[in-house]
């Protein structure tokens, strides 16, 4: 009980500090901007630690963050290998291929009404080819190594990217299009000079959503067969060994990689779509 009160007090205190940091006089300092999410995260972690200890949650169900941190620190070489295998080889390759293919498809769909009528419904058919179903098949086709993981990622990111790009390409105003017409701009010119720039906010939406999907895809695909490394491999084998600290250390790697990846895309987005009201804020 007293633990609960302590936890609650801690939460309120840190939240208040956060509100002050985020909106107070220091809010535009760079360190304050970094501190806000960190503080929030630390709050969560501390609460987690308190909860696990207070409720005596068995270690094989949920280990406390301190133990996860220790395991993470002690397993860096192993986790690095997993990171390279899953994120760099499987995830990134699949992300690049999948988003690229979806982008080109979106342009084809945009160019030919025929494809728009025929391909879009088919693509949404592909949308929920659930990873559970596709992964075993793709592992069967492309083998155990990262190639099959990349293939799973391709299938996963294709639809979100396609939907966003198609929506983005439709996002021009009538006057903007009329101008292009009045200059006798050809299809490609209209695309490159008008529709693509106008679509960028949507395209980056897709790219951002896909970053996390790519990670999930690469990790989960490893459940269905893998070499003896990779984050997905680590997670499943460690669950089996009840080494929950290792499970969470692997998840930590995924979270760090994912956040970094997302942050990178968001950064590029800021540069590319600086003109959009949502960025001018």
């Amino acid at each position, binding site marked *: 009980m007293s633990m609960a009160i302590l936890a609650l007090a801690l939460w309120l205190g840190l939240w208040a500090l956060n509100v002050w940091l985020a909106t107070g006089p220091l809010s535009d300092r760079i360190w304050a901007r970094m501190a806000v999410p960190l503080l929030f995260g630390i709050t969560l972690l501390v609460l987690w630690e308190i909860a696990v200890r207070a409720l005596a949650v068995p270690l094989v169900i949920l280990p406390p963050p301190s133990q996860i941190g220790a395991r993470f620190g002690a397993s860096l070489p192993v986790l690095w290998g997993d990171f390279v295998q899953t994120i760099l080889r499987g995830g990134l390759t699949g992300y690049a291929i999948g988003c690229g293919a979806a982008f080109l498809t979106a342009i084809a769909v945009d160019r030919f009404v025929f494809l728009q009528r025929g391909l879009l419904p088919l693509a949404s058919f592909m949308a929920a080819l659930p990873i559970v179903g596709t992964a075993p098949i793709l592992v069967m086709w492309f083998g155990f190594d990262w190639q099959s993981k990349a293939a799973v990622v391709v299938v996963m990111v294709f639809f979100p990217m396609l939907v966003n790009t198609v929506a983005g390409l439709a996002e021009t105003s009538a006057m903007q299009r*009329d101008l292009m017409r009045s*200059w006798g701009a050809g299809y490609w010119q209209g695309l490159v000079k008008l529709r693509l*720039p*106008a679509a960028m906010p949507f395209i980056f939406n897709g790219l951002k959503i896909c970053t996390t999907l790519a990670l999930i895809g690469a990790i989960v695909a490893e459940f269905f067969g893998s070499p003896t490394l990779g984050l997905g491999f680590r997670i499943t084998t460690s669950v089996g060994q009840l080494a929950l600290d290792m499970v969470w250390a692997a998840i930590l790697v995924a979270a760090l990689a994912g956040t970094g990846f997302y942050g990178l895309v968001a950064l590029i987005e800021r540069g590319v779509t600086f003109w959009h009201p949502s960025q001018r804020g």
Partner: protein
Amino acid sequence: MMNAPIAKTVISARGVDLTFETADGPVHALKGVDLDISKGEFVSFIGPSGCGKTTFLRVVAALETPTAGEVSVNGMSPDDARRARAYGYVFQAAGLYPWRTIGRNISLPLEIMGYPKAERTRRVREVLELVELGGFEKKYPWQLSGGMQQRASIARALAFDAEILLMDEPFGALDEIVRDRLNEELLRLWAATGKTTLFVTHSIPEAVYLSTKIVVMSPRPGRISDVIDSPLPPERPLDIRDSPEFIEIAHRVREGLRAGHEEV
């Protein structure tokens, strides 16, 4: 009321009707519009708000298809003329692309039409000076005042060599002084290049000062109620606006406008 072609006819409209279908019934934007415009003419369109001026310009530029009637531009369909890059169009609202600076907005049609880079830079400079926006080349549209945006959009249409200039209230947001200056510039440019110009305005003096022909329109349905050929000489100093001929034409235009309004 129709105007016999004097020189080579560039634009010819015959019985043009245009009806917009809207959720609560059709809107007759144009009805039985007949008009011939010769090469090198400067034609002003004047008429009450909503009478179809913009719509007519859009029909000429192949942005709207008439429900009935025929339009030909240089003997081709408006759409072919569009493809042949015959038009420089200044829209009623500025319509600048927010992701491009003013300079790059102006150079956009030049890029599209394949002008070489050096030429683009030169022309952008030139037209920016012309509309008195030197020094704003690197700004983004949302960093400009309303009138500045409008001037940028005028500059954009002037930067390339369109045979036909379509200008929809280009000077609406400008003060008298700049407006006078730009009127003079436009006239000079027109005289020098002989571009056929279709110009929508709400200012009677402006229409009379600039035009070789003034088309007065009346609304609902939009049609041409008067076409006035200007007897003013091609050389027009600003103070021509005090001459009796000028005042007389202005009067006729005002009467036409008023008649259009009363009908409603």
